[in-house]
């Protein structure tokens, strides 16, 4: 009888351990909405995430084997490309937009500044194929991976099959990107009642809720939709944003609202990286708005902020820095 109980207890413990192990790969932060990404169709496993991480940091995805995803999405800068307004790719070719920061991607339904990509699985295809980014074809990537001993092993571990397919390659990259969750900033600990805002941060939070939150909605700090935020048109780019995809004039000059999480590290700002500092961004919203037919509703009335307000608001924005996320060894370059 005792033996039976013993076995039952061991089995229960094993089951719990298994549950804990799978939960830790992808955990929805407390009080967050349900993710948009349906992980039932691509269940996360440690091995698949690891394969995805190897692929993310491997220049094998580019035509000349020199550019990896991380070239423009560095982990230490919230997975974006700092120091460049327009990001550059293969052969130092310069693109037309600033690479977006990557985090909390499971909660988005469209990707890229213009929403060209409709699913996280398909996202990697765009930079891989773009002549100014990685200049490669997914067909060739699959062939290169197929001929690599390292990847045969990793695909076998992840999928139980050494045959590399486009589907498995893309889904593994998705799995790694899904694990890039930022929810451990000071703001988050205040929301979880584990710490307190300073008086200045608190004032800044009130200003944020009043002036910014309708587009940069909590807890993602983006409503994940598209808006025209009144930027003057850069005549060297003439980027019409979302309208390029929908061909609908109502979408003219609309770009995806970026998250403000880790804003301290994700400079330069805007789709074309035109602003280097947070103060430049605040100046735009208080005195630089260009009115046009598609201007966001929330920007129709001027935003008035004193210089003290701007300092308070900036102090709040810095509470969105998540060092646990930025320096998480699970997100960084895989060790040999």
């Amino acid at each position, binding site marked *: 009888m005792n033996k039976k109980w013993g076995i039952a207890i061991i089995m229960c413990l094993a089951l719990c351990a298994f549950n804990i192990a799978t939960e830790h790969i992808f955990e929805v932060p407390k009080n967050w909405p349900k993710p948009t990404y349906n992980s039932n*169709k*691509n269940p996360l496993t440690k091995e698949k995430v690891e394969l995805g991480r190897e692929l993310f940091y491997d220049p094998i995805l580019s035509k000349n084997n020199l550019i990896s995803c991380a070239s423009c999405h560095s982990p230490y800068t919230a997975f974006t490309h700092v120091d460049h307004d327009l990001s550059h790719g293969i052969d130092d070719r310069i693109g037309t937009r600033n690479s977006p920061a990557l985090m909390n991607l499971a909660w988005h339904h469209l990707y890229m500044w213009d929403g060209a990509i409709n*699913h996280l699985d*398909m996202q990697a295809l*765009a930079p891989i194929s773009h002549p100014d980014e990685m200049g490669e074809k997914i067909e060739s990537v699959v062939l290169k991976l197929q001929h690599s001993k390292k990847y045969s092993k990793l695909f076998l571990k992840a999928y139980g099959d050494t045959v590399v397919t486009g*589907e*498995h390659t893309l*889904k593994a990259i*998705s799995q790694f990107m899904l694990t890039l969750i930022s929810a451990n900033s000071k703001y988050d600990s205040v929301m979880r009642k584990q710490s307190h805002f300073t008086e200045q941060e608190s004032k800044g939070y009130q200003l944020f809720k009043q002036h910014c939150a309708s587009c940069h909605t909590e807890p993602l700090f983006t409503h994940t939709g598209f808006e025209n935020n009144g930027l003057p048109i850069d005549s060297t780019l003439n980027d019409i944003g979302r309208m390029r995809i929908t061909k609908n004039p109502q979408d003219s000059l609309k770009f995806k609202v970026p998250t403000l999480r880790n804003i301290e590290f994700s400079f330069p700002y805007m789709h074309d990286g035109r602003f280097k500092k947070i103060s430049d961004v605040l100046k735009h919203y208080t005195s630089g708005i260009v009115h046009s037919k598609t201007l966001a509703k929330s920007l129709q009335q001027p935003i008035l902020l004193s210089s003290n307000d701007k300092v308070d608001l900036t102090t709040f924005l810095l509470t969105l820095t998540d060092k646990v996320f930025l320096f998480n060894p699970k997100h960084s370059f895989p060790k040999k």
Partner: protein
Amino acid sequence: MVMRKFIWMFCVLVTHNFLFSQQDKLVFHPTFFNQTLKPEVYYKLNAKDSIQITSFKFYVSQLELLNGRETVWKEQSSFHLIDAFDEKTIVLSVPSNITFTKIKFQIGIDSLTNVSGAMGGDLDPTKGMYWTWQSGYINFKLEGNSNLCKTRHNEFQFHLGGYQQPFNCLQTVFVQVKSKANVTLNMDVAKLLLYIQLSELNHIMSPSKEAVELSGKITETFSVSYE
């Protein structure tokens, strides 16, 4: 006694499987007017032009058989990439023990599948039928050369696709069949090229009004013959 019952059951199952596994062929046969279309052979639409086709691929999905108005068979996860110049891909199978008067299928990929992420088999994005700069399957691809096109190497390229309104290019095809024998669906590319006016329009590469219009003409290229 039990053994006898078991053997009897076994026989029933085997016969059942045999009957239901009998397959008829459904063949997609590309033509240029009445000739079988071959790659890199020059054909004439009119006296002045000459046209060759280098690539002709399309998706056939949601294959169904109907008897009158009633659906009598529906293929499960029905997605086929047909490469007109690859004989392995042009033959589909339908069950032979079913009476039907109509074949129904779609040319292209439905909108739900288009937004469902990475998929394998014929839907794998390595098949060259997926746009990379903007998500979505290319439903129908026709490429070639003609002296009518004032382009580099006289090329023309028609990549038809788009799953969102107002540029949804998905086409539903109904074909009436008379005989129960193997069915051949002829697809006359010449009909499509006559509609296009190659001297004016030589490429479509994104979801657009032009893509929707041309997609609407694909259904008119079909005719039926029997083996």
